[in-house]
């Protein structure tokens, strides 16, 4: 019999390892489950994925369903959904959680409709209050927050990356590893991946980056924009941009951070010559710390920044690159 706080976590492996957000989702799942005496089960898809199950258990899973096979080597919604839906029906959790990653955003709505229930995407808070699961998510480009409850079970939620404290690993934890007897009929896979061009955008995965250096109008030219690349290289970070450098061709359109671009949440976001239009702020406001360099003291971006430098990027950034090189030795 399922407890009223049983949680199912959809884990996500990449290149034979668990991405760090899995531990955050497990941390949240554990807190929710413990509040009501429930258990945390995880589902892991992959090829030769069994080896990752102990890591999920160490981070809080009581059991791990492993769907192992060539069909699961790369994420594909249609390959994962039949088994995932079957496990959800069999375990009847109160909630199904996964990271709000490219996979989670693509998978969760389909799973919700297949289970005839609802989904809340990009959640930043979750609690069980009076027996009801309440999820909080940003909306209106981060200007608003909504708290939602569910009329159907399971509640499905994607959890914003870095919004939760990760679970502390405990190598002594014990849990069951269950091999999934797959119900997938390969004939049901209608979407075929026919090609993949990695890194053609020239930008690293902005959503996963811990440090992002973003350039704006204040970098003045394609040559000026090179400063963003140089600073990012010194910091080991990724490069992003506000809309104008993308429109002017100083960088590819895929660099654009904002409501009509990427939504990012790095630990450190360096905004170089970015004034802080609302649509840009919507894309970076959830960074742990924004640091801005701008000539205009009244620039909106400073209102969102932990540190601000009033100055010309052409002068400040080369000096900053030199100073950070010194620190990094």
């Amino acid at each position, binding site marked *: 019999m399922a407890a009223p706080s049983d949680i199912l976590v959809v884990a996500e492996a990449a290149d034979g390892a668990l991405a760090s957000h899995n531990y955050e989702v497990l941390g949240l799942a554990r807190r929710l489950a413990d509040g009501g005496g429930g258990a945390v089960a995880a589902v892991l898809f992959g090829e030769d994925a069994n080896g990752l199950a102990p890591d999920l258990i160490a981070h809080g899973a009581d059991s791990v369903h492993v769907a192992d096979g060539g069909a699961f080597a790369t994420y594909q919604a249609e390959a994962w959904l039949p088994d995932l839906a079957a496990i959800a029906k069999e375990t009847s959790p109160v909630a199904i959680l996964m990271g709000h990653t490219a996979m989670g955003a693509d998978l969760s709505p389909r799973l919700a409709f297949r289970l005839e229930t609802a989904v809340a995407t990009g959640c930043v808070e979750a609690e069980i209050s009076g027996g009801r699961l309440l999820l909080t998510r940003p909306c209106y480009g981060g200007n608003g927050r909504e708290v939602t409850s569910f009329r159907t079970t399971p509640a499905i939620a994607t959890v914003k990356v870095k919004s939760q404290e990760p679970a502390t690993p405990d190598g002594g934890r014990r849990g069951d590893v269950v091999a999934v007897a797959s119900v997938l009929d390969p004939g049901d896979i*209608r979407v075929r991946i026919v090609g993949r061009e990695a890194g053609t955008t020239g930008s690293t995965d902005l959503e996963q980056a811990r440090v992002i250096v973003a350039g704006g109008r204040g970098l003045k030219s394609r040559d000026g924009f090179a400063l963003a690349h140089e600073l990012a290289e010194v910091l080991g970070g990724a490069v992003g941009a506000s809309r104008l450098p993308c429109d002017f061709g100083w960088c590819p359109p895929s660099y654009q951070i904002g409501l009509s671009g990427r939504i990012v949440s790095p630990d450190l976001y360096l905004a170089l010559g970015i004034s802080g239009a*609302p649509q840009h702020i919507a894309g970076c406001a959830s960074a742990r710390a924004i640091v801005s360099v701008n000539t205009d003291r009244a620039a909106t971006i400073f209102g969102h920044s932990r540190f601000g430098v009033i100055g010309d990027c052409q002068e400040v950034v080369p000096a900053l690159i030199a100073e950070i090189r010194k620190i990094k030795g």
Partner: protein
Amino acid sequence: MRVIVCVKQIPDPEIASSLFKVDEAARKVIPVPGLPMVISPFDEQAVEAALRIKDKADADAVTITILTLGPESALTILKGALSMGADEGVHLCDAALEGADSYATAVALTHAIRKIGDHDLILTGRQAADWDAGVVGCGIAELLDIPAVTLAKDVQVDGPVVRVERVAGDGVEVVKAPLPAVVTVAHELGQPRKASLRETMRTAQKPVAVWSAADLGLAAGQVGEAGSRRTRERLYAPVSDIFCEFIEGETPQQQAAALAHRLHEDGLV
């Protein structure tokens, strides 16, 4: 071939944060007086994707149907899409349909798509820029039991197959799916075209059907707030508690040194 594009009317997402106000009791966003409602930007790019398909084919071979669910004012964005070059519109306009969550919205749109009849491709934005959920597109595909491809930057129809270049992490994934299919469009598709004078002149002659929940064969309990599977318990505007520490210095070098020091001190570098 028919391409159906699902579009949504929303408050202008580019307004300054300071203008964003909510009515906490009603759990609704308060419209800013004098500011127009607009088509959600990703949905406008979905219209553009449909028009690019039509540009490549014989114009008569592709019919683009714009589908929207919203109050009377949503007719504006429907007409806007027609003046970009779409052929016809369907407006789901009924008080019973209001207040729907993503689930009830997808149910209503799916019934409308069935009522429209033959369709090959259904396009929509990757998410609406008001609630930022990104759920309805995949929901329609599940309800119709057809494939869905998300985050398209390029959409090509080749006979009975749609070929999509989709944004995947740091790269591009090329996928093919049999039609009919749902494709959601990302901003990487590029700028939508402006309304053309020729198409604007023709807009008055383009048919726009207005349907109620009853026209879709849906009972009041299946749509709108009543048909929703989530309840909005609270809506608020979070207060920012960020205080900016300005880094002082006589020269850019001094500022840079002081900033690097503070970043190092706070463990950010």
